[in-house]
């Protein structure tokens, strides 16, 4: 019951949605849209698990005064603040006249979103600009022909995509300046490489999906 039923469910769901691609006749044409609603609703429930788990771990750290309990306390406080404001603004927005969305500019939720959440996530990713530069200097070596080709392509694309590339190759006729090299690399060489990779990934995904449907791939169910 614990292992056979889920595999059967996965098999039936997989076959139905596989066939639904080929049958326009209702109700099959509605399956993909129904599934998008179910997927969205289940995702909304699943995040309750994630959030509750995060809160549980953080609470344990705070109560047992673990080494980084302050860090955990800050996680709890910021989580509670944005959730409380989110619910408050949401309900206020629904019952206001004219109703507004909790995400509208001017609501407290939007203020938290712009000034805290998006600032932090943008800066977190922006850090990588520095790490890429230091890795370029200390680790990226033309150690063999393949790595040399890679660095050359990167060289021409990076310089070609900014005006400085054309300043350097200003002495060439317009059609042969570096920005045209970069466009040619992108439109021809990159297209060919990307296609080979996309076809490879597509075939890989078909075989993984088939194994999931036929119940050969069981890792997602975990232990008994």
């Amino acid at each position, binding site marked *: 019951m614990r292992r056979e039923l889920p595999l059967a469910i996965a098999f039936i769901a997989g076959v139905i949605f596989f066939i639904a691609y080929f*049958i326009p006749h209702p109700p099959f*044409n509605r399956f993909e849209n129904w599934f998008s609603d179910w997927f969205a609703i289940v995702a909304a429930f699943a995040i309750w698990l994630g959030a509750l788990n995060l809160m549980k771990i953080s609470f344990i750290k705070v109560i047992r005064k673990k080494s980084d309990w302050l860090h955990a306390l800050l996680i709890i406080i910021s989580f509670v603040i944005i959730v409380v404001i989110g619910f408050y603004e949401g309900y206020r927005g629904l019952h206001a006249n004219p109703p507004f969305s909790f995400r509208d500019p001017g609501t407290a939720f939007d203020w938290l979103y712009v000034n805290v959440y998006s600032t932090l996530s943008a800066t977190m990713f922006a850090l*990588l600009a520095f790490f890429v530069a230091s890795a370029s200097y200390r*680790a990226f070596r033309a150690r063999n022909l393949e790595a040399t080709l890679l660095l050359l392509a*990167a060289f021409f694309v990076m310089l070609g995509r900014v005006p400085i590339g054309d300043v350097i190759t200003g002495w060439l006729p317009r059609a042969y300046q570096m920005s045209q090299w970069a466009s040619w690399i992108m439109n021809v060489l990159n297209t060919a490489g990307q296609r080979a990779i996309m076809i490879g*990934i597509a075939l890989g995904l*078909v*075989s993984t999906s088939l194994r999931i449907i036929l*119940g050969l791939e069981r890792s997602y169910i*975990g232990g008994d």
Partner: protein
Amino acid sequence: MKYNSVVTARFAAGWGCLLLFLLVSLFSMPVLAQEEPVTVDTESLLVVPDSLPLEYYPLPPSNVRMKDVPNDAGGSLLIEWDLSLDDYEGGKVKEYRILRGEAAEGPFEELGSTARGTASFTDNQAKRGIKLFYKIAALNYEKTNGEFLWKASSESDVAGPAVSTAQWFNLSRLNIFIGIIILCGAIIYFITAAKRGKSFYIRKIAGIEEVENAVGRATEMGRSIYYIPGISDMDDVQTLASLTILGHVSAIAAENDTRIDVPVSKSMVMVTAREVVKEAYSKVGRPDSFQEDQVRYITDDQFGYAAAVDGLFVREKPATIFLIGAFFAESLIVAETGNSIGAIQISGTAMPAQLPFFITACDYTLIGEELFAASAYLSREPKLLGSLKGQDLGKAVFLLAILIGVILESFGVPVHELFSVR
């Protein structure tokens, strides 16, 4: 793996329902063929309201005909008509209005309008299975800044009844259906063949061949080996492939009596990795030299994990580092530190965005599918070997198609139609 009956039952069920479905769609083919043509052609009446003089009125369009749009869920009809004779540059026709009613004389509602010179409109609100009647009105009008000065329209005769039907099989996707059936059939065939013990050839993969000398280097220098299985959890296929390779590397490390450390970022991965390494040690006859803390959990946080691993590299100075699995933006932080302490690095991932960093920073890299091919090669598991062979067959078909297709295309044979999507 025990050859259990449930799996074969499922194979039979899967194939059975697909064949059944194929038969149903084949038999339904003739039924669809005879679509009754719907054309009505009678002399049209000029409707003359009292106020406007006759010559304002354009001649109406004629020969209105409808066709059910094939391969859809019903609910859409293609309406076509011959242009009104007054439809030319500067002519009297400015627009056409499409009107629909549920009875020949019944109330007509306006569906939409098309610009002068167009002779077709798709009505995709035609409820399935209901008889519908259409007529097209040619419209002449004068407008100043959005307001109508006057309007004169003359309608074509009523055409109908037309019914939109839904088809059980989308014929335009037949080529895709055949393609996916061949591919899935090949994968299933190779998996069952591999289960029955048939051995398959997999070409040499550079990264895996190097494992021996990389571990050998660590043994000579008397330093440890670090194995980083990526930061994804057990639901990522790349992590599963990485753990297979970990088993292989641990076995060689145990033979050479060199310590292998596996810091991980997900607790479930730690549990599985411990099993894999312990089993590798016992397989080589060294169960006692395995210590639990060789495989330990660091943190779930991406950058926290990268910073912690960097610290370990700088302190322990391992001779050989493996970075195999699913990596994200932290990949270059770890690879850079590994490079700066002069270790030999073998990496492998299927994340396209991280491959450039691994290729330039590491000595050997398993590129995309090579990661999965390596785990199939090492584990000899039927489902992995069978999938790999099935995918190779798919690639072979595509390679042949491209080769032959390009040649034939140069002579004008539209081979690409075979693969195109409508």
